[in-house]
């Protein structure tokens, strides 16, 4: 039996071989050097997706350990050998989820899908996009290694000279990661604006492309403000003695950056969720949404409410800003566009009786779960800004964060299933991706619930919510939620690895047949 015969005996490999032949002409000439020299936007997007999924595994493990540290079984300082180390991991978990996992994951999917959706032959500035990937990867390694070496974004319990130096390195890594993501975002936005099909107006582009364009605008006009924060902190930290902003022995550095992980800025990750959900539901139903301009408007309004550079409270007294009308209005209004989209897609879904296979489709379940979790996160965000509830400085902050993270990750899984042939030239296992959606949804739900309930019960503000006040049950729920979330990530990583193996087998088949 020849290699070709053995490979094509597997129908999955055979269909992938067809996809490889039709989608990537010349792929047989791929070499080990390709990731360093490619100017193919799809290949660069795949690199982002692969590496960000690996970082997702890392972040999930850190998250589970941090949750374990909050449980009653051990003291937080015992898990990571000291309070400073615990604080480092607590912050690393949040930063890595946003900058190493979710933003690059969405960017990667968009780099593959969006040019095709708008009729562009390739991504605009593909070399800049490749530079963005490698800068992001180098920056993320610098960031993580420096945190593990004693750096991080401040400390709670004094620092040594070496730890101060490591913190400077962490800031450099963080800055590099943000600049790289901005370069990739710029490349994507320019593709939609300048390279789309001549006959397609901006409002006619598919919902995902539109949501990525709008998200790109928010990212381009929000993330640079974090760079400004980092520049100020770095300049102070590297002085002979830090005088105000870069005091390494305090949590001040984190407090200057935490606005990025709190509402409204935290919603900037979630803008593409709306586009992915709209496309997935339409694809499963087999109908186009009747009022595409309504979807565009909903996505645009939500993006506007995610602009958050103005909401940092480190430089002013917190009550000046966060009790202000604008902050409260942003918090309350964010519920509206998500609810509107849920209503619009719900109406579309119920126009005709749903078939059972439509109801159990991973994309349908995932889109519904992502929107409902995002809706729940915005509702928690709305509760958080209602002053009498006194949730602003409580763990409810992290309930919003976890809700958004859960929604974005589920939407990313949906996108990987929906565009699996474009992304991987092979289909992603529906069973594994379905399990991933359910596990991530359940785990994220538990995290949101435990953080929110703790926020109501807790009487003291605590930036880390080191111990969830209330009961042992909450701490256990939080830990179980983190582990379940991690299992969900492992499921989709396994599914993607399987798809990539099928793709490699298909390429081998193709090479054998051409030889």
């Amino acid at each position, binding site marked *: 039996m020849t290699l070709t015969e053995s490979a094509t005996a597997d129908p999955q490999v055979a269909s992938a071989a067809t996809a490889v032949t039709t989608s990537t002409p010349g792929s047989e000439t791929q070499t080990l050097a390709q990731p360093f020299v490619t100017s193919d936007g799809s290949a660069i997007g795949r690199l982002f997706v692969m590496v960000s999924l690996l970082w997702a595994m890392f972040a999930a493990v850190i998250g589970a350990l941090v949750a374990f540290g909050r449980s009653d079984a051990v003291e937080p300082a015992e898990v990571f050998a000291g309070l400073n180390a615990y604080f480092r991991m607590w912050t690393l978990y949040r930063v890595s989820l946003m900058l190493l996992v979710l933003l690059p994951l969405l960017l990667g999917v968009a780099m593959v899908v969006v040019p095709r959706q708008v009729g562009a032959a390739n991504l605009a500035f593909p070399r800049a996009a490749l530079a963005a990937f490698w800068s992001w990867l180098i920056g993320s390694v610098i960031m993580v290694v420096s945190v593990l070496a004693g750096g991080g974004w401040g400390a709670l319990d004094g620092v040594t000279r070496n730890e101060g130096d490591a913190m400077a390195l962490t800031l450099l890594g963080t800055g590099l990661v943000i600049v790289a993501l901005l370069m990739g975002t710029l490349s994507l936005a320019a593709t939609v604006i300048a390279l789309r099909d001549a*006959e397609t107006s901006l409002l006619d582009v598919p919902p995902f492309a539109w949501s990525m364009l709008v998200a790109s605008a928010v990212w381009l006009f929000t993330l640079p403000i974090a760079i400004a*924060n980092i520049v*100020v902190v770095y300049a102070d930290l590297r002085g002979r003695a830090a005088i105000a902003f870069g005091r390494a022995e305090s949590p001040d550095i984190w407090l200057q950056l935490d606005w990025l992980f709190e509402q409204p800025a935290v919603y900037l990750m979630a803008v593409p969720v709306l586009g992915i959900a709209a496309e997935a539901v339409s694809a499963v139903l087999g109908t186009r949404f009747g009022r595409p301009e309504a979807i565009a408007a909903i996505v645009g309004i939500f993006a506007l409410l995610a602009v958050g550079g103005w909401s940092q409270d480190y430089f002013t007294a917190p009550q000046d800003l966060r009790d202000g009308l604008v902050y409260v209005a942003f918090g309350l209004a964010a519920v509206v566009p998500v609810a509107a989209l849920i209503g619009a897609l719900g109406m579309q879904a119920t126009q005709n009786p749903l078939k059972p296979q439509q109801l159990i489709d991973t994309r349908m379940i995932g889109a519904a779960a992502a929107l409902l979790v995002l809706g729940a996160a915005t509702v928690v965000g709305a509760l958080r800004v209602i002053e009498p509830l006194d949730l602003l400085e409580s763990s409810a902050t992290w309930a919003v964060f976890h809700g958004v993270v859960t929604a974005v990750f589920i939407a990313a899984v949906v996108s990987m299933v929906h565009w699996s042939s474009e992304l991987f030239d092979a289909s992603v296992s529906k069973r594994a991706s379905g399990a991933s959606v359910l596990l991530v949804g359940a785990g994220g739900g538990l995290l949101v619930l435990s953080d929110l309930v703790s926020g109501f019960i807790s009487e003291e503000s605590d930036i880390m919510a080191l111990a969830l006040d209330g009961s042992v049950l909450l701490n256990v729920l939080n830990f179980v939620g983190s582990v379940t979330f991690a299992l969900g990530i492992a499921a989709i990583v396994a599914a993607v690895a399987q798809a990539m193996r099928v793709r490699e087998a298909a390429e081998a088949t193709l090479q054998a047949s051409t030889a």
Partner: protein
Amino acid sequence: MRTTALPAPVATRPRTVAVGSLLATGAAFIAFAGLVVIYVQQRQHARATGQEWFPEGSVELGPAGMMMMTLVLSMVTVQWAVQAARTEDRPHGFIALAVTLLFGAAVINQFWFVYADTAFAIDDGVAQLLFYVVTGSFIAMLLAGLAMFTVTTIRALMGSPGRDLAHTVQAAAIYWHMCVLCYFIVWYVVFINK
């Protein structure tokens, strides 16, 4: 032939380089604006609590005004280079580039003078730290602008005839004009309003 048989006009899209340049320029401006906002907030806080921001008479307005004038002039020479690149006029293009580089160098030299004149140490206080952060970031942006402008202009002028690269010079010019706008903000916020 009936006019209805004619093909539909092709929609014109902005050049990719121009779009990319606008987006990058916007992002750079936002980052710089973020720095200036921190500066203003800290100064307001200091004044509200009765603290002195800069020691009396330590920051002179004269050199800062000269820099403003120099940069305004550079906007003209930058557009001169863009026009020369469009018409593939090498002599004018190189003169415009040289004069722009001279203006840029003059501004950096003037900043050197300002730093020597004020004699601030970076860790003297919040005011001094932020003074160096804001002006230092501006100098870094200006150097990036000079490098970008030089490379694009030389590529456009030395490239093969007929190959239209003037839009790359225009893209660099957009960034340069944003730098001048940033300096206008520095001039007003840091030097005039001290």
